[in-house]
């Protein structure tokens, strides 16, 4: 079953056209890895999906709802398709647990008991149950990003978007974050991940997309892309990062 459908998506920043007609269909339980040099539009594509960025043209459908319609209730879709940010963007005035419970309490109107039960379950899942009362600035980068993932999970989404989740981390913390993401992938979460982590792509990606010149230039299984890329651009890119 397809959960995301993107047709002819265009996005311009001023006169710079970052996306020039992207077409994409994502099936349930797929783990999509977006590759491409910086400025290739990976982040922009993800941010257009939940309309943190306003597309200039094209049609986006998520879980049967047309995101690009004016009348669509975006807040409903965003609960079901949450996002993990490169710079975490945790709420610094709230504890780790409160970061997780805010959405369920305020947006989904869950009871405090239930929100905290879900919150603690997720903190345990990302290995941070003992940090429930810690404020984000007191946590390491890796811990902050794991809270970020747990916060996105707390809405009990069907799809998760990861915008370069390990790019801002010291290398020593990358693994703990990737491990959590791999666990999610294996549990069947539908994920779209912009990343440069090839190991992650090899291990869990169902499909790898290579973005260049504002379009998806090449796509395939990790095997196909890493061993047998068809375009020169993709081969050059891979040779630089592998």
């Amino acid at each position, binding site marked *: 079953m397809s959960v995301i459908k993107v047709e002819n998506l265009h996005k311009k920043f001023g006169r710079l056209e970052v996306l020039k007609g992207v077409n994409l269909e994502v099936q349930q339980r797929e783990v999509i890895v977006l590759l491409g040099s910086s400025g290739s539009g990976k982040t922009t594509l993800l941010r257009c999906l939940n309309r943190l960025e306003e597309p200039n043209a094209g049609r986006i459908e998520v879980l049967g709802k047309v995101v690009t319609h004016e009348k669509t209730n975006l807040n409903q879709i965003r609960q079901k398709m949450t996002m993990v940010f490169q710079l975490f963007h945790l*709420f*610094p005035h709230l504890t780790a647990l409160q970061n997780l419970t805010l959405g369920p309490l305020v947006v989904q109107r869950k009871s405090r008991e239930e929100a905290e039960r879900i919150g603690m379950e997720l903190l345990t899942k990302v290995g941070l149950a003992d940090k429930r009362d810690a404020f984000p*600035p007191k946590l390491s980068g890796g811990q902050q990003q794991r809270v970020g993932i747990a916060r996105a999970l707390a809405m009990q989404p069907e799809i998760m978007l990861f915008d370069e989740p390990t790019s801002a981390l010291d290398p020593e913390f990358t693994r703990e974050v990737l491990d959590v993401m791999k666990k999610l992938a294996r549990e069947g979460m539908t994920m779209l991940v912009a990343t440069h982590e090839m190991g992650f792509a090899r291990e869990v990606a169902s499909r790898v997309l290579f973005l260049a010149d504002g379009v998806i230039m090449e796509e395939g299984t990790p095997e196909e892309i890493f061993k047998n890329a068809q375009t020169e651009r993709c081969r050059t890119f891979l040779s630089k990062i592998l």
Partner: protein
Amino acid sequence: MDFNFDLFVKILPQLWQGFLMTLLLSVLGMFFATIIGMFVGIARLSKTPWLTIPTTLYVEIVRGTPLMLQILIIYYALPSIGINLEKIPAGVFALAFCYGAYISEIFRAGIQSIERGQVEAARSIGMTTTQTMRYVILPQAIRRILPPLTNDFVAMLKDSSLVAIIALFELTTTARYISTSSGNVFTPYIGAALFYLLITIPVSRLVVLLEKRLGVGQ
């Protein structure tokens, strides 16, 4: 120097009354000014012209005219268009109206100082703009807003003496009245100054404390 201690003791109850009036005007004025400032500050940051244009106009008009003139207009000119205010409400209204504009700038700057990613993180889990403002942005901005807000309270406390022009017997007016009736200039004015300092010095110290407390860590 003709400070007369006996006179000072004698006029203490009168000065106290004036002081209470000053405090009443400033506390109420500040309360309403903060509410006005919060909403105007948020409105000026919106993208809707029918919110930004009138609020910007309001702020520019208030900042471009003297408070004393605003007080005169509110008490003497508004009745001619059918709005009659008693002295105290008129005084409170004038102070709130004027300081609301200044305080809106404090709120605006405080809100703008919160990084964009906070809004995006809140919106990305489905929060509305109002929920984002209430649960994510304002609680963080308030740390940066509180010190300048407290400074404005001190400023308003002093500016409240301008309502003397509509014959409200606050602290300064009371002192002036006593000095005329007693023939002693020095004692009532120094007495009034002491009463102002009784509030302004502790509050100013509080600002310093707040800046230290809220500036670092969580």
